[in-house]
């Protein structure tokens, strides 16, 4: 009997084969259509590459969501990071896509059960390249325009951390170092490498505009306050190997 991971591996392997054969028959590198087929075969069971009908599904969509929304991947990700992550995937959200699915109640409080996670399949370098090209072409249609207003400024590690932890409360859900902060949100010490600065600014400003079922609150921050937080993300992100 195949486990879930075996099935994923088998499906992944098949799609790699399909993509490889298609490229071979065509006599050139894989096309956008090949990449799209690969994504449809391998990614859409866990990731939305088109906008879901959030209103119709209600909050159940968030509970059942298996992986991050990708229909605005081109607005969100840094291309080089996405390429390297697909080749060597690792968990960015300590609590997974929906933490309650990975939470167990113990005498020491709720903890994350690492045995409940299925590793994301690694994508071979040449295939990852065309998949990244495809994903970077995906953009949200009805979100605030992503204008680059952020100009990096220096921030001290001490003041930046204080702002992140005590004043804005980000550390309740996010880690700003491997061993510091909350576990339900994505790690923030790699945010600068993962995401475009204009996306980070826009998402902090209005998470629900991007994801109607975002688990991140809108703290109604002024642009300048958001920039200070991004200064800190830049500082800790550039320190992270």
């Amino acid at each position, binding site marked *: 009997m195949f486990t879930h991971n075996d099935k994923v591996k088998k499906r992944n392997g098949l799609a790699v084969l399909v993509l490889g054969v298609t490229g071979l028959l065509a006599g050139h590198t894989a096309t956008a259509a090949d990449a799209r087929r690969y994504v449809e075969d391998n990614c859409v069971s866990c990731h939305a590459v088109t906008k879901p009908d959030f209103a119709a599904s*209600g909050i159940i969509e968030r509970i059942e969501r298996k992986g991050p929304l990708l229909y605005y991947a081109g607005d969100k990700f840094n291309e080089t990071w996405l390429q390297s992550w697909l080749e060597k995937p690792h968990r960015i959200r300590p609590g997974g896509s929906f933490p309650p699915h990975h939470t167990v109640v113990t005498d020491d409080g709720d903890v*994350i059960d690492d045995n409940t996670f299925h590793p994301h399949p690694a994508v071979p370098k040449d295939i990852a390249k065309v998949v990244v090209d495809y994903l970077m072409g995906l953009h949200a249609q009805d979100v605030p325009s992503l204008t680059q207003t952020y100009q990096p400024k220096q921030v001290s590690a001490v003041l930046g951390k204080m702002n992140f932890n005590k004043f804005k409360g980000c550390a309740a859900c996010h880690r700003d170092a491997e061993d510091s902060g909350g576990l*339900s949100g994505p790690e923030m010490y790699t945010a600068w490498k993962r995401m475009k600065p204009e996306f980070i600014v826009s998402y902090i400003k209005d998470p629900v505009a991007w994801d109607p079922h975002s688990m991140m609150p809108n703290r109604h921050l002024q642009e300048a306050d958001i920039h200070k937080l991004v200064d800190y993300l830049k500082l800790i992100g550039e320190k992270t190997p």
Partner: protein
Amino acid sequence: MTRRIIISLLLGITITTLPVVMIRTAQANESGIDAGKRLYQVYCVQCHGVGGDGYGINVADMEVLPKDHTDTREMQSRTDKDLFKAIKHGGKAIDKSVLMPNWDGNLSDQQIESLVRYLRTVCCEKKTK
């Protein structure tokens, strides 16, 4: 005869699709205790705990423990209006921790009301179960 077949078919389609439509409508409206329970799972358990006891997965590094929603006496000292305000406008609005965020950007008033109704079952109905 044909008319009877058509009526039977229409009835069959209605019977099979109605529950789906009803579930979808209920989910979209997000009201009532069941909706409150779902919303609690999405927005609250990470800090307040799966059991509502204040020991969620995020608390290890917190300087203030999240509210224990199973503490009947403490929760009974808060009115529904207090709870609504804390959820909608966050800890700062009620002179509590900034770590409790304002959920006004994520939740409608109707959804917050359903959360308050669910909180009342967590805090104060356990002895009657």
